[in-house]
């Protein structure tokens, strides 16, 4: 199992921050997922060993956090917020639009593996609703047209 040098430096640094190794687990899982694409059996095994936990303990934590996944997602994970503030300004309609445009449903992935779609809970963009995140990037004050442009740009970027 190989992670990037940046990952390893950060990981080694984090272990000096806490009195217990385990404390580094949650952020480390997310960083590992970002590099590998998902928390595969191999990643779980590796991190469990490094943090002196059982694989079950690691899986137990993974299942709690909504951003963590053991199944690969698309290259661009489109997360549309439909919580109250976004709902009032068209978040649900935006989600429906994305479903149609991408031809997938909630937690689906396009066949080319480029996009996956998720209906998410509040992402902290309430004053700029409706909003979505594509991976970690925020997109705000959205309309269907704006969303089309955003998705087209990612598509271009992803197929280059």
């Amino acid at each position, binding site marked *: 199992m190989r992670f990037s040098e940046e990952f390893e430096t950060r990981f080694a640094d984090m272990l000096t921050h806490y009195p217990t190794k385990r*404390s580094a687990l*949650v952020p480390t899982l997310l960083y590992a997922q970002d590099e590998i694409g998902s928390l595969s059996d191999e990643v779980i095994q590796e991190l469990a060993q490094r943090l002196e936990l059982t694989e079950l303990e690691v899986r137990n934590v993974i299942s709690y956090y909504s951003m963590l996944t053991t199944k690969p997602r698309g290259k661009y994970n489109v997360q549309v917020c439909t919580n109250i503030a976004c709902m009032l*300004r068209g*978040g649900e*309609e935006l989600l429906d639009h994305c479903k149609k445009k991408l031809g997938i449903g909630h937690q689906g992935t396009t066949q080319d593996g480029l996009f996956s779609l998720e209906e998410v809970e509040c992402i*902290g*963009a309430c004053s700029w609703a409706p909003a979505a995140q594509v991976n970690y*990037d925020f997109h705000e004050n959205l309309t*269907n047209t704006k969303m089309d442009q955003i998705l087209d740009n990612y598509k271009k970027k992803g197929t280059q």
Partner: protein
Amino acid sequence: MASLVSHPDEVRVISKRFGQGATDIDRYLQLDGYKAVQKALGMGADALINEVKNSGLRGRGGAGFSTGMKWSFVPKQSAKPKYVLCNGDESEPGTCKDRLIFEHDPHSVIEGAMIAALAVGSHTGYIYIRGEYRYLLVIMQKAIKDAYAKGFLGKNIFGSGYDLDIYWHGGAGAYEVGEESALMESLEGKRGIPRIRPPFPAVVGLWGGPTVINNAETLAAVPHIILGGADWYAKLGTPKNGGTRLFCLAGHLNKPGVYELPMGYNLKKMIYEVGGGIPNGRSLKAVVPGGSSTPVLLPEEIDVAMDFDSVAKAGSMLGSGGVVVLDDTTCIVKFALRTIKFYQHESCGWCIPCREGTDWLKKTLTRFHAGAGLKKDIDNIYYLAENMLGKTFCPLGDAAAMPTMAFVKKFRKEFEDHLDGKPCPFEKAGVVEPVMA
């Protein structure tokens, strides 16, 4: 990058450095940065706690507990290390203020955490930022690194002989973790399951050591209080509700945005003047005054001062500062359903009343909104919510119950309009349109 707004009624304390490039440590220093912590080093713990107590600063995460009081609960002597933990797991629907603080003024949070550490005699602090806010975590990581490089953190800070470390920590998607005891569990590398209290975190917290947990906005206010003085800060607000706060105006408004207003600012004015009123010639139906967990207010109830005590008197809560405005095209049943869908999704499942209650509420409200509601459902919805209230380890159960009870109590007629196989009256009429469409 979230866009900034302004209004003449704003009093800029926490947002003073927004848009000023203060993520750069040298710029932060030019803007009076790290002066407060140096002053604090000369003040001593008791004086710091008293100053913050007298300022009337109350927890900006939502509970509104006196910050100075919270600090005073930490025992002076402790066999185990003491900790300071900044709660940046902002996720209460309607709330997007900490995001701006981290984006524009990360050093103010570090400095506030440093002062909190000095006040309680701690040598280690953590700044926990939710996983979705990755770009803010990157900003914070750099800010902390820069503070170490200047010698503001680490051994012998500012030549005082005091050692102080502040570390970053990232979450991975969980509302529940914003609850203080679940936050500690998450930081310890576990599922965010709340802990039973007592003992309170101030006595037994992170790894068993006494721990002070403050919201990011609370900590960002602390350096300003130390520099400007408790009296100055207290006078910005109303009695027992010192200072200003960031209000996140959202929903059906012409000018939504995050505005810094004095505590006690009138809610009606906030909606119609600061927020620019309701768009498209529609009228106000209801306001959720402090994040999704706070009971809804009717138009006739909004002539209220937005401070913790006044909003409580009006039957709701000031909460996290998320003001969500609903116009007359909003279906309350649908709004209640979306609110409960969230709490059902986020319930950790540890306490049965919350796990089962939110699930049944979601099921009942879903069926109800779809037109298959029964008359007895209305009382059942209220009854279910009422039986979650105060019966769970953490406030998530209450957060789901309180708004639900208010929706039923204040909009019973609208629930009745959904009965007898009638579909949602709002959707049938086709008036539920997104503002932005």
